[in-house]
């Protein structure tokens, strides 16, 4: 049996394997980005602003301050209740002594507590920047009965900066990978089509339109992209589940809906790369004159 020349035939394994590896790496970057984003969200949602209150306020006054704070748009709501906690000076003292190990009662006397009652306010994620927190501080300090407002300065900007750094590095990496797979797949398909260039020429000479000739090649490219996408997605899910099982606390960073989106994107990239690469390679031969083929 002579070597069979098949229409639209390209070395399946080479293309699928290289595409799969690249798509898997891209997916991994996407997964890291998702986790970093979720981590940042968790951190941000736990940022609290402390509003320290004047001493000796009546319960009604405390209540009215609470209500005034709750009206602000930056306060985080969960299940319809404002995330504002009252921390009494006694509780604060206990916390301080537990944290620092220094009992100031020994120094100041048993009934002397220099700490203040406070409201601890959780802030919505979108207010998470140093400048907006400054504004929050200002508006809170305008409320009568609030003596001072405090938050961990610079922490916020530090987190933001690191997150954008991670995004930048990962997206740079993804871009690089995309360029590499496009080149790799282009090359593989180009080599494969080289052996079919006279067949393509014959098709042109019998009067087939370019789009008719392209069709079998391109649909094969799409199929290969899809298969690679499926394999890469499966690998990605396995990797992620392994990580979740091995690393404690990773579970809270798991987001099923985002993961589904990521997999859809990987499948799309696979098909897109498969289609555009074959399209371009076939097009190259369609545009050549017969003499350039030899």
């Amino acid at each position, binding site marked *: 049996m002579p070597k069979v020349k098949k229409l639209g035939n390209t070395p399946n394994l080479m293309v699928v394997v290289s595409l799969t590896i690249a798509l898997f790496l891209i997916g991994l970057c996407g997964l890291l980005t998702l986790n970093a984003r979720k981590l940042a969200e968790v951190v941000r949602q736990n940022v609290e602003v402390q509003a320290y209150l004047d001493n000796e306020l009546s319960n009604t006054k405390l209540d009215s301050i609470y209500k005034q704070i709750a009206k602000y748009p930056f306060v985080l709501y969960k299940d319809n209740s404002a995330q504002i906690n009252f921390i009494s000076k006694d509780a604060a003292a206990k916390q301080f002594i537990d944290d620092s190990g220094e009992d100031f009662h020994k120094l100041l006397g048993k009934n002397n507590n220099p700490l203040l009652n406070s409201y601890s306010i959780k802030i919505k994620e979108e207010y998470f920047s140093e400048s907006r927190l400054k504004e929050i501080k200002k508006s809170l300090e305008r409320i009568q009965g609030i003596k001072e407002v405090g938050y961990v300065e610079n922490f916020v900007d530090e987190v933001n900066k690191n997150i954008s750094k991670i995004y930048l590095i990962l997206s740079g990496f993804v871009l690089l990978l995309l360029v590499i797979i496009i080149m790799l797949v282009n090359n593989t398909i180009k080599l494969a089509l080289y052996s079919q260039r006279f067949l393509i020429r*014959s098709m042109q*000479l*019998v*009067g087939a339109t370019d789009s008719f000739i392209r069709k079998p090649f391109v649909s094969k490219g799409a199929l290969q992209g899809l298969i690679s996408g499926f394999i890469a997605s499966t690998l990605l899910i396995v990797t992620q589940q392994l990580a979740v099982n091995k690393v404690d606390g990773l579970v809270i960073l798991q987001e099923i809906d985002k993961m589904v989106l990521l997999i859809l994107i990987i499948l799309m990239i696979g098909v897109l790369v498969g289609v555009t690469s074959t399209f371009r390679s076939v097009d190259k031969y369609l545009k050549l004159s017969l*003499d350039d083929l030899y």
Partner: protein
Amino acid sequence: MFNAEPVVSLQNAFIYQNDRIVLNDVNFTINKGEFVFLIGRTGSGKSSLLKTLYADLWLQQGSAKVAGYQIEKIKLSDRPFLRRKIGVVFQDFQLFMDRNVNENLMWVLEATGWTDRAKMKARIAEVLMQVGLASAKDKMPHQLSGGEQQRVVISRALLNEPQILFADEPTGNLDPEVSAQILQLFKDINKAGTAILMATHDFDMIRQFPARILKCDNGYVKSDDL
């Protein structure tokens, strides 16, 4: 009048191979149903002339009309439609090796816009009959001899009832006996009304089948009507 119009006509055409002129100031016409040999040494420009006529090489200077298409102005998107009105045969013109004769021909019909299955089947039977391969429909190309493969290629060129066949050394790698049979086949096709322009350097063939001759020599095409 449609009938009076020649199938191929060239006026002051200059045939280029890349940037080099291979044939100067070419003028000739081929009428419907004519049989014309195109002779000349290897490298004399026969193939370039044929390629220009089926719009594979760009006609940069002068004008040419083939099957109603103005070649010097033809758009890339019109090229397939020109080629449906002509037939091209040359020696290493490939068949799909992974499908049988019938499927090879079927592919061409699909590619050129046929949709009616019954008509497609009938047309394939017709052209195979014409080239004497009526029984080879289900054979794979590798099961056929070189001469038979060339017959399939010719039948493929005939599918869309071309006004003219361009044949570039169609018997180039066949033995003399088979060559004569193939040439006879071209003669028969010609008798049925299709014009033929055949490039060859096989002078025996021309002696056996006298016909009008165009000769490529020293950069010019000489018409040598016999």
